[in-house]
């Protein structure tokens, strides 16, 4: 009973702050609303007893990505600058398309009879997660783990190369 109230509170928070994220005129506020959405999602993971996942959500999403977004907002726009919104016609058409898609999906979800499994839940403590990430048997995830580490390294180097200032190139142009 108690967890029900908590769940619907979190659901309401997620929906309200999602709408505010995409409609707020001030970009910095939109970033903070996004932070609230991500923290509420982490709370839902805690309710589902995936504690490690919730911790990762809090540290990587709420701690990492939102800070990155806020920094880039501060680098690229004035703090009181207001975002330009789409004109009324475009907003209306987008809202229409989005409502149609949402209603179709919701009807499909409500029609489908999901059968919850009665099997005992596998625990997901840090030990379980760590063992699964390095094992290569049937329930192991060693290959995705290695691939994702290479992807992260590539993204790290790529981001540095793309974002740094290219002084040497300008010099060459002047010499030529």
């Amino acid at each position, binding site marked *: 009973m108690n967890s029900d109230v908590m*769940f619907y509170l979190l659901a309401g928070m997620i929906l309200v702050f999602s709408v505010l994220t995409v409609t707020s005129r001030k970009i910095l506020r939109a970033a903070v609303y996004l932070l609230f959405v991500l923290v509420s999602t982490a709370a839902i993971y805690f309710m589902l007893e*995936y504690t490690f996942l919730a911790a990762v959500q809090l540290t990587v999403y709420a701690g990492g990505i939102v800070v990155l977004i806020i920094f880039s907002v501060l680098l690229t726009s004035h703090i009181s600058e207001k975002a330009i919104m789409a004109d009324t016609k475009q907003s209306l058409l987008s809202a229409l398309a989005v409502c149609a898609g949402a209603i179709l999906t919701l009807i499909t979800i409500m029609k489908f009879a999901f059968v919850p499994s009665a099997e005992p839940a596998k625990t997901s403590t840090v030990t379980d997660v760590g063992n699964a990430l390095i094992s290569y048997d049937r329930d192991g995830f060693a290959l995705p783990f290695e691939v994702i580490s290479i*992807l992260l390294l590539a993204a790290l180097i790529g981001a540095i190369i793309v974002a740094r200032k290219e002084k040497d190139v300008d010099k060459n142009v002047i010499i030529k």
Partner: protein
Amino acid sequence: MTGTIPLQSFLVISTLMFFIGIYGFLTRKNLITMLMSIELILNSVNINFVAFNKYLYPQNLQGHFFTLIIIAIAAAEAAVAIAIIINIYRNFRSIDVDNVDELKF
């Protein structure tokens, strides 16, 4: 912990969040706010994976690890996207999609 909450409640939340993200992606003009809409979409997919894992296949952890990997990919994507956005800002002095039309034919 989940008590009497049906699986459908989670799916309804993630559906609404997904389509709110799509709406933001279609109507926003600023590149950073479009990136935030993409984060909303990715997050709604994560909720779906976790809810299906918990309700339909609790004996496995596949949805859990899928979500973990999506979070890592979202972090990588955000880092590269923000590097590109900062570069665009240097060249155009603006990050509104209407002003960045150099490649437009």
